[in-house]
């Protein structure tokens, strides 16, 4: 019955055909397929190419170059919002982050509004974080979770709650809590999502490594006391915590205690002690002795040294005041570690640089060997000090060796692969570029330098006033007055216009290099210079009103006067002169005589004798050489009576008789 019921579902004829061709033999794929010619051509299925979820993104990101006209991507790409000075860069990035913080605060404050679940799979960061209070129900697992998320404050709170309730905490958990507390010194670390704060933090807070910050008798030590019997891990974490926060004496004492009790510690603990050797001993010899003792102890405990050991030893060596000892011991350490198969990281090279290239030491070319060794390599972060390398290397290139080609090599290394990630923070980056630009503008031709300048400024690096001065000096030496308008507009944007020395050198360059009007390239130049001068004049005027520290000197005004005259802007020139004339007593110094001379010449051309006479009067009042001016006026104009009379009163009758 069952079959017949199903049968009706099938079209009749098909069953007939299928049954009709039946026999007891099987129909197979091979026999039914009529393709005998290419029966079994062999084929090979390729293996699956394994990749991680982000591999394609990485590959795509690898194709993207740097656009030098665009700001860093953390800034909004809009002319109004692109930062144009170092201060603006910092302010903008930080205010964006503080906006994010405000939003986060609202989320935490009104947590009941953010409990909905839209995203699938859920994004944890978008939900309000757990809050633990005195009354919350906690158990071991929540403590474990908090430790995994490294929420120090909450973890400590939960731990205290558990203590109060008297619920047992496993030894492992206690150990990991101890590690957490020791690592962060029982302080809430800076949240990881605020990268800008990290990026700019070095600018104002130079990490002073001189004071002890370890909290004595705090939770860490209490936890440590609770762990019985003392495990090697407990010792290790407490020693490392103390060493990190510079409770040096006690850390060392603990190490010795562990040694007496025959407790096997690990390599990183020894590394942390080696790092603080310089705080334990005063002289280089003592430090080195302690260092070797520690290493010996390590070898007795059959510990394998690693990169951290190498860098710690080098750090210890770098604190030696004795240059020769530092040098020789560094040279001894390096081959030993090479033999051990420890590959140096950028941090190692950083220490080598500061050991060998000292300010008052002999010139060392160790950087050449280092660069030969690592050129073209891509580095990962392996040691906290890795980020110091590039800034130091560039510093060495500029101040120690003053070698352009080396600097270029360092720059090339920085732009290899993802090495730019190791540039450190904003402070180190600006140190790096400061040295790089200063070196280039001293050693390169001005044209080549301007190419680099165009690439770097302003989106990657904004020159500080000191560097601006160097650049201006380079321009002055090369007589490249054609770059001045460009530099001036940059200075305006970077807010350098209240630096008197910069203003002075800009003016000096423009005045001293009188453009040759015959050359087609320089035809526009007088006008541009006049514009710059006028701009400067107006800016300083305005700045004086707003009580900024910059003010005119007579020389500056004279230069501005000259430039305006040269640029054919006589109107403005006479305005500036009127200013000079009126405020004689306030303005220190006087304009150069040549400036007055040119001004008078121009007024002759413009046929305005009263201006010329005013200039003459000014010259006479300020005890300047006036006879040449008077002569010029006399010959240039056909003066009327009043003017003539004035001329006479100024320079005397005798002049006319000549």
């Amino acid at each position, binding site marked *: 019955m069952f079959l017949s019921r199903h049968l009706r579902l099938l079209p009749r004829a098909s069953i007939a055909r299928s049954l009709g061709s039946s026999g007891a033999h099987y129909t197979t794929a091979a026999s039914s397929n009529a393709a005998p010619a290419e029966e079994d051509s062999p084929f090979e299925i390729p293996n699956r190419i394994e990749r991680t979820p982000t591999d394609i993104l990485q590959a795509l990101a690898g194709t993207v170059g740097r656009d030098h006209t665009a700001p860093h991507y953390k800034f909004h790409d809009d002319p109004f919002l692109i930062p144009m000075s170092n201060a603006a860069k910092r302010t903008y990035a930080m*205010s964006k982050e503080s906006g994010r913080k405000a939003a986060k605060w609202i989320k935490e404050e009104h947590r009941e509004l953010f409990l909905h679940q839209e*995203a699938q799979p859920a994004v944890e960061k978008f939900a309000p974080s757990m809050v633990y209070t005195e009354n919350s129900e906690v158990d071991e697992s929540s403590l474990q979770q908090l430790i995994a998320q490294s929420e120090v404050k909450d973890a400590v709170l939960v731990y205290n709650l558990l203590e109060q309730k008297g619920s047992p905490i496993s030894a492992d958990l206690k150990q990991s809590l101890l590690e957490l507390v020791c690592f962060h010194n029982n302080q809430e670390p800076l949240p990881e999502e605020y990268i800008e704060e990290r990026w700019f933090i070095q600018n104002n807070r130079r990490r002073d490594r001189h004071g002890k910050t370890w909290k004595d008798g705090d939770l860490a030590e209490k936890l440590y006391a609770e762990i019985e019997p003392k495990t090697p891990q407990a010792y290790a974490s407490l020693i490392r915590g103390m060493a990190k926060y510079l409770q040096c004496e006690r850390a060392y004492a603990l190490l010795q205690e562990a040694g007496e009790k025959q407790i096997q510690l690990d390599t990183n603990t020894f590394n942390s002690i080696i790092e603080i050797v310089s705080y334990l001993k005063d002289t280089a010899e003592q430090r080195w002795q302690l260092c070797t003792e520690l290493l010996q102890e390590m070898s007795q405990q059959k510990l394998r040294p690693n990169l951290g050991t190498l860098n710690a030893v080098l750090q210890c060596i770098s604190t030696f005041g004795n240059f020769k000892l530092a040098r020789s011991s560094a040279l001894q350490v390096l081959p030993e570690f090479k033999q051990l198969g420890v590959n140096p990281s950028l941090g190692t090279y950083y220490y080598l640089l500061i050991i060998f290239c000292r300010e008052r030491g002999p010139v060392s070319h160790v950087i050449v060997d280092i660069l030969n060794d690592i050129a073209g390599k891509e580095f990962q972060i392996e040691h906290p000090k890795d980020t110091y390398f590039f800034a130091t290397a560039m510093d060495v290139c500029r101040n120690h060796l003053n070698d352009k080609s080396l600097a270029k090599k360092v720059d090339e290394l920085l732009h290899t692969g993802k090495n730019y990630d190791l540039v450190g923070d904003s402070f180190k980056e600006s140190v790096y570029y400061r040295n790089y630009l200063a070196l280039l503008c001293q050693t390169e031709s001005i044209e080549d330098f301007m190419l680099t300048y165009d690439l770097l400024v302003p989106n990657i690096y904004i020159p500080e006033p000191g560097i601006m001065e160097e650049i201006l000096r380079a321009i002055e030496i090369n007589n490249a007055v054609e770059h001045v308008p460009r530099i001036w507009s940059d200075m305006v944007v970077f807010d350098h216009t209240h630096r008197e020395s910069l203003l002075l050198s800009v003016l000096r360059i423009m005045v001293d290099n009188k453009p040759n009007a015959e050359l087609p390239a320089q035809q526009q130049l007088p006008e541009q210079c006049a514009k710059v001068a006028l701009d400067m004049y107006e800016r300083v005027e305005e700045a004086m009103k707003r009580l900024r520290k910059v003010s005119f000197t007579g020389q500056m005004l004279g230069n501005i006067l000259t430039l305006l005259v040269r640029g054919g802007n006589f109107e403005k020139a006479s305005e500036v002169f009127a200013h000079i004339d009126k405020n004689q007593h306030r303005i220190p110094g006087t304009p150069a005589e040549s400036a007055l001379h040119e001004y008078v010449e121009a007024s002759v051309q413009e046929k305005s004798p009263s201006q010329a006479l005013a200039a003459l009067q000014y010259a006479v009042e300020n005890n300047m050489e006036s006879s040449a001016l008077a002569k010029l006026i006399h010959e240039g104009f056909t003066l009327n009576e009043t003017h003539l009379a004035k001329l006479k009163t100024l320079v005397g009758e005798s002049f006319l008789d000549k």
Partner: protein
Amino acid sequence: MNFLKKLVPQVALAEAQLLSRSSIHTSAVCCRVQSGRYRITTKRNRPLTYEMANPPHFIGHRKSWNSWNTSTLEDGLRPSQTAIEDVFIRKFMTGTWHALVCSEVIIKRQHNTIRIAALIRQAITPRKMYFLIGYTEELLSYWMQCPVTLELQTVGDKNDVIFKYI
């Protein structure tokens, strides 16, 4: 009737309350209100942006959509939620960037990210703008549970966006 007399003051009070609460309704005539259409003023001085100058039936012909998502398409998922969220985003943007937004708020949804574009007046300092950018992006992403990016364009003057006067 005596008992009524006693009640009168109370009734009067109740009536007064009723009157004060639902007095004459004076809102505009709803039946002639249409979205996206503007009337010509006698002085011909009502400024219109390009968006306002083209009534809704030109969407897709003369002007483009302000919301780009897949919920409105055939078989799109969660259309109502998306619409509500868009309204929320628009209100949030115009309120947070108070008197700064000079155009419609354009909402683009791509995968699970939301990109919000708008024209912003340069009336506050860039520093404050950056604060608002950070705040808006973060808070909206908490709310929508999608990463939110602002893609703003600033204009110097609000007259820059005016297309014509009617």
